[in-house]
């Protein structure tokens, strides 16, 4: 048997509109239960929906970013099913004639380029939220009901859990770049349902597709897809049939590893009796409107990566890291632009190194977004120039940056407040250190033999030679380097 996995992803992304899809209620996710609801989104008798133009534009924008053909003629459809989070007993969605179809997204998996085709991108409305109580009742909050939701369906072009995760990461990056979705999986504004099965490429035998639910992180997507591939492979090898099913992912806990189990068999669930929505007239996307939307498209991640390589002479790897988020890329460009003298490529290299090093470290430690950091790009540029001019050593610059990161104070202010005054340039200080080490060979020998407390004497000598103008920490660092301790 030569087995291969077949994976397609259905992604639901809440659109970044201010009001709902078919009524003017706010989409504010922090509103109290049932405070952003009206007769339209709770399906009171006699109401009619009206389409939010912005939501249509955001879906078209997504279609353009994903290389889709945009439908000149598109309609909404009713998807009929009965569940308490859906007060109309149907969801307004799209079936025939979706807004976008036949696109692709190129991804990089372990250094290899893969093209994942996009089958369709369509517009629909989100459902309410059900909260299960201790008793045999559920509570319903309809705030989310009617929030614009975009569904992005890939072709089953992925062959491994790694590919599925990379596709999802790249897709989220695109949606964030073009400003259509926050991409927050934990909060559910970006949701993923993989379809997984396994095929024997020799005999053509296939297992039934598993549709996976309850995945609220990239990790969960990766693990659940891996789990399903292994399960299907095992069953296929044993010659057992694997039925088409919707399965729920249970993350690992102390008692057992992550696993999936059956939610429902699929044949029964999918009888949605779609038909064209009689309450809404068709959408026509003419050339004028399309060019208007196209003109508002920002640079996409891939374009930005390529430009960073050519404009700043960065390696593709560095360009990839710096463009991971739009905010990070913007910060980088602003900092490079604020560097005064010298070659752009050199400034870019310094800024790139600093952002990937110190900045990323502090962002990870504090869990902050770069956009919220008080230290602005021009402050970073200024700090790096002080280092470049030899006025600060790398170690001191790191300390200065930690305060800058917290407070947003410019480097010269922090330097003067802390009384950091650097004598001459770093090479001058190094010359003095070398002289002191040469004059006190017996102490150097002690330090090297492990009596590190004797180092204080050497530092003291350097401080004396500089009349206290040097920064002890810097002196200490230089001595450590020279003695290799």
């Amino acid at each position: 048997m030569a087995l291969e996995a077949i994976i397609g992803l259905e992604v639901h992304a809440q659109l970044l509109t201010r009001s709902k899809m078919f009524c003017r209620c706010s989409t504010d996710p922090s509103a109290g239960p049932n405070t952003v609801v009206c007769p339209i989104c709770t399906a009171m008798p006699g109401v009619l929906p009206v389409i939010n133009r912005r939501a249509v534009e955001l879906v078209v924008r997504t279609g353009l970013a994903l290389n889709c053909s945009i439908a000149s003629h598109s309609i909404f459809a009713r998807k009929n099913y009965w569940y308490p989070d859906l007060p109309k007993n149907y969801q307004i969605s799209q079936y025939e004639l979706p807004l976008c179809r036949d696109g692709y997204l190129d991804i990089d998996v372990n250094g290899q380029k893969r093209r994942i085709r996009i089958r369709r991108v369509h517009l629909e409305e989100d459902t309410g939220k059900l909260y299960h109580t201790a008793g045999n009742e559920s509570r319903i909050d309809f705030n989310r009901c009617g929030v614009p939701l975009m569904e992005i369906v890939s072709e089953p072009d992925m062959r491994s859990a790694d590919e599925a995760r990379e596709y999802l990461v790249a897709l989220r990056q695109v949606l964030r770049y073009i400003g259509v979705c926050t991409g927050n999986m934990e909060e559910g504004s970006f949701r993923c349902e993989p379809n997984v099965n396994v095929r024997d490429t020799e005999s053509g035998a296939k297992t039934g597709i598993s549709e996976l639910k309850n995945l609220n992180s990239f990790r969960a997507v990766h693990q659940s897809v891996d789990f399903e591939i292994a399960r299907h492979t095992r069953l296929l090898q044993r010659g057992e049939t694997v039925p088409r099913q919707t399965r729920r992912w249970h993350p690992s806990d102390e008692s057992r590893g992550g696993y999936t189990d059956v939610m429902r068999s699929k044949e029964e669930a999918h009888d949605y009796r779609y038909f064209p929505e009689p309450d809404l007239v068709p959408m026509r996307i003419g050339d004028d409107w399309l060019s208007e939307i196209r003109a508002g498209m920002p640079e996409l991640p891939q374009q930005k990566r390529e430009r960073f390589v050519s404009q700043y002479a960065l390696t593709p790897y560095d360009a990839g890291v710096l463009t991971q988020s739009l905010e990070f890329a913007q910060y980088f460009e602003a900092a490079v632009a604020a560097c005064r003298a010298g070659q752009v490529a050199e400034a870019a290299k310094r800024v790139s190194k600093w952002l990937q090093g110190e900045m990323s470290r502090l962002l990870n430690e504090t869990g902050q977004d770069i956009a919220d950091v008080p230290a602005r790009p021009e402050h970073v540029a200024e700090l790096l120039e002080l280092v470049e001019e030899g006025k600060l050593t790398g170690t001191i610059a790191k300390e200065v940056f930690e305060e800058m990161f917290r407070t947003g104070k410019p480097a010269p202010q922090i330097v003067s407040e802390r009384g950091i005054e650097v004598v001459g340039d770093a090479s001058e200080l190094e010359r003095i250190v070398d002289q002191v080490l040469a004059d006190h060979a017996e102490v150097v020998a002690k330090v090297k033999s492990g009596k590190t407390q004797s180092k204080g004497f050497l530092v003291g000598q350097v401080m004396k030679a500089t009349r206290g103008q040097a920064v002890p920490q810097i002196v200490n660092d230089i001595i450590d380097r020279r003695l290799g301790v």
Partner: protein
Amino acid sequence: MRLSLDEVRHVARLGRLAMTDQQCEAMRDQLDSILAHFEALQELDTDDVEPTSHSLDMANVYRDDEPAPSFDRDRILANAPKRDDECFRVPLIMEED
């Protein structure tokens, strides 16, 4: 007959309607006559007619993305058969299977 009793039961189940066999039979007869009525349309030649999805010859009816104040929660919850201070309450949904 254009419809089987099983098809009627299936449609009833999708709509969460509890129906007796007698009601199913009555409904089958009524639905059957509706389908018969629509069959008359099949006799027309529509090869040159462009499909439409709506009876109005209109397109692109939109509103701007401007939020407006919502309804007071108590008014929205007023007609709920069961509620608490914040939410509608419904019987717990059990997955069938």
